[in-house]
């Protein structure tokens, strides 16, 4: 039996010390009629060698970036991950530790999370960052909850229609059953129409949620939209692409109150959608109404600098039903990955990655537009690393043809539901180009699509 220590002899010794005569009798408090009178029906145990063969076989049934070139987007991206990230995240001292409740035995995690918070603040220009939330989608719902607390407006939030459709769905799941109206301003032309947003806002609105660059890859007028939110006394919540901040102006620069993101791009593999990383930052003045764990710097009894869990009175294990969130386990190890990633890239690296994505994506867009039947969905809109194309022969045709040539594009826009969907969403497909893609790959794709 793997991972067990007690030999039959030891079990007998231990039972004797306890004062019972069998393992079975340790379970005496479980009434016999509640016992499962049979073995669980789960597949037979596998040794490590068998398990490895089995899982390898299952993995081989999937077709991923090892055999295809990934140009997929929609909130999860195939960025390069330096080997040093895996080296650190693979240290047992990090991945087999618990939440750092015992500060003296956890300074490694605590300082790392403190530096993670600092790095994300530097990246975003925001004052305060927590030690992570689950992922991009729940960051939006947590933002909405926080905005409701801060503004004391509990009945209305406004989302841009260019917010990732799954993020919209998460907000709806979290909020609508609370009789909070979730207003979506439809995105009919690739980015928000400020007039329509203004019309949707009112003095009851807790927050305006902006995604910039948005789901279609295009840039929003984030500053102007933030001003609109503020005009109505609402908070401006901005969901950003962390890589884009290598070149784009930062939420802290243009007055966002809450800045959130899916942090997968910062050193975490795609792994079929999770675990990813919810990044959550805000202005200092809201810090006591933030969700999630916060690490603070302090001194120990000898005056030595050290780190502790801070402001725990916001959290569920202290405040229970009055907590700012129910979150307990967060995404610690993924936050560590992001910290190592950002430390490696630094000021120059993040800029270079952002520029590479931007340059290559524009080249790809230009080249794809030369394929007959393919056109850019929003040729006039500026974009960062992702863009939507439509294919006259349908999205499926495009995806299939690319797949056969060894390229994965997508997602197709018709995969999601929208409050109002322009006709061309039926044939629209997202294409994301990271720094890993090469001109030769892009050219090959274009050649294949032309054939």
């Amino acid at each position, binding site marked *: 039996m793997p*991972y*067990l*220590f007690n030999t039959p002899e030891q*079990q007998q010794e231990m039972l004797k010390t*306890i004062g019972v005569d069998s393992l079975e009798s340790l379970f005496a408090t*479980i*009434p016999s009629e509640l*016992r499962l009178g049979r073995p669980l029906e789960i597949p037979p145990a*596998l040794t490590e060698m068998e398990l490895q063969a089995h*899982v390898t076989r*299952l*993995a081989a049934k*999937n*077709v*991923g970036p090892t055999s295809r070139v990934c140009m*997929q987007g929609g909130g*999860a991206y195939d960025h390069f991950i330096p080997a040093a990230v895996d080296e650190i995240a693979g240290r047992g*001292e990090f*991945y087999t530790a*618990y939440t*750092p409740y015992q500060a*003296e*035995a956890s300074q*490694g995690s605590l*300082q*790392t999370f403190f530096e993670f918070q*600092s790095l994300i603040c*530097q990246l975003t*220009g925001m004052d*305060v960052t927590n030690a992570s939330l689950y992922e991009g989608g729940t960051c939006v719902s947590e933002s909405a909850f926080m905005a409701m607390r801060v503004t004391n407006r509990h009945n209305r939030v406004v989302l841009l229609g260019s917010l990732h459709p799954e993020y919209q*769905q998460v907000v709806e799941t979290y909020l609508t059953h609370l009789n909070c109206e979730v207003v979506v301003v439809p995105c009919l032309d690739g980015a928000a129409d400020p007039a329509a947003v203004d019309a949707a806002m009112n003095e009851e609105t807790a927050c305006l949620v902006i995604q910039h660059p948005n789901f279609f890859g295009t840039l929003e007028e984030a500053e102007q939209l933030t001003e609109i939110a503020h005009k109505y006394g609402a908070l401006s919540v901005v969901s950003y692409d962390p890589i884009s901040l290598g070149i784009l*102006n930062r939420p802290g*620069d243009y007055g966002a109150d809450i800045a959130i993101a899916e942090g997968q791009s910062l050193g975490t*593999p795609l792994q079929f959608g*999770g675990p990813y990383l919810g990044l959550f930052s805000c202005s200092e003045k809201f810090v006591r109404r933030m969700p999630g*764990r*916060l690490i*603070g*710097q*302090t*001194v120990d*009894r000898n005056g030595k600098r050290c*780190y*502790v869990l*801070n402001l725990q009175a916001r*959290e569920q294990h202290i405040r229970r039903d009055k907590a700012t*969130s*129910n*979150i*307990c386990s967060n995404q*610690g*190890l993924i936050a560590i990955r992001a*910290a190592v990633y950002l*430390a*490696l890239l630094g*000021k120059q*690296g993040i800029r270079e990655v952002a520029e590479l994505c931007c*340059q290559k994506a524009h080249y790809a867009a230009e080249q794809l537009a030369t394929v007959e039947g393919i056109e850019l969905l929003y040729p006039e809109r*500026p974009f960062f690393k992702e863009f939507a194309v439509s294919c006259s022969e349908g999205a499926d045709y495009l*995806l299939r043809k690319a797949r056969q040539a060894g390229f994965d594009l997508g997602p197709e826009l018709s995969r999601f539901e929208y409050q109002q969907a322009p006709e061309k969403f039926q044939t629209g497909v997202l294409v994301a180009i990271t720094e890993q893609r090469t001109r030769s790959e892009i050219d090959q794709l274009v050649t294949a699509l032309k054939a």
Partner: protein
Amino acid sequence: LATESLFALSKPGRRGAEFPAADVPERPLSELIPTSALAEKPTGLPEVTEPDVIRHFVNLSTLNMCVDTHFYPLGSCTMKYNPKRHERLASLPGIVDLHPYQDQSDLQGMLGMLYEMQEMLAEISGLPAVSLQPAAGAQGEFTALLTAKAYFEDRGEKRTKVLFPNSAHGTNPASAAIAGFDCVQLASSQEGLIDLEDLKAHLDDQTAVFMVTNPNTLGLFEKDIKQIAQMVHDAGGLVYIDGANMNAILGYTRPGDFGGDMMHFNVHKTFTGPHGAGGPGSGPIAVRDFLADYLPGPVINYHPDAAETEQYTLETPAKSIGRVRTFYGNIGILVRGYCYLRTLGAAGLKAVSENAVLNANYLKALLKDVLPVPNGNLCMHEFVASASKSKAANGITAMDIAKRLLDFGFHAPTVYFPLVVPEAIMVEPTETESKETLDAFAETIIKILKEDPEFLHQAPHSTIIQRPDEVVAARNPILQCCEPQ
């Protein structure tokens, strides 16, 4: 050196990662992006080398105690061994590199694995419908409560209350609040179990859900759980089982069999996640058949008669509450949980619980004279002792013992939780520790209790820092190390 800040290591011009020049024709950025959208200056990220990064974080890592280095009997957290095969297999190409929006025909191996995971969790829980989506236990609670809410609403019932005992984890009330319920906390009995009278007094037609951890946070099996469930059901409510303590009962008894209608698993506890210094977790839920249609989407379905590329599909249940997150769940953790279940099989799972319970009772027996356990004769996988006696005798508190243990190379147990036990010391040894380790741990506690109380109040003495000032931290929070640039 180890604890110098990353930012202090920074020097302009140092590089930890480099990238090639663009291989496409480059255009000035301002032609691609409106100037107004471009940052005026670079980020304030530090500039360090790859060797800096490695030495910094490797040294930091060594300041942690962890399961791989120390006994870590943190009650309620199930700090069991994290098998190394899981790390290897979760990193295989074909698993670690799948994009969530790939074509379903390209994902049959992954979806098949997840489907099998759903089936195994259904069998272990005795509850047939499973959602793998929740990112952690707390999100599992929330998701299940929302599922219940949708169910009641669909039946035209307006039930507003969620009940839970005062020994509950904080996430229970916090999740109920977010799900829009009123929270009602119940008393515990003298035995440390649910007080049936108090429960009865609070059950009514407003009661939506009764949340209960079983075994409870005192490490005791709620022996009246069947009757309790009946009472809740009679009042028209549903029973939610917090699965945090499943490690005690695997293959012995099932939430679905003792009256639970919904539950979550903590894959990162029971199925050895690992904990990752705080996460990621994974909190799949299992529910009764009549709740299946309300689960969040998508779930994985199996169509045995379909073509090989279409056997497993992602589908949203008919009356789904909607999405609770993007994509499909914390897959990387679920893959590890899958590996664990496939490694252990039915007999192995039962042996896990047997040995977890054996280890807890053995350690309790070794300690009970010096650290009495107020509730229960036999415990399950953990027990809650009290330092009240030593505190009264010479002022040695639970905190003193916890801190001093660090000096001897043992992580501290959970202290001051659950709140219902004064000077609580909550010990969960798990099954992946040896009798020898338990003996050494017990001897150490006995030794500590004979030490000078003043010396103990200053403990720990050998760690890199000692008793941080949390009051100062909270009064004037320093939450990052430099001004934003």
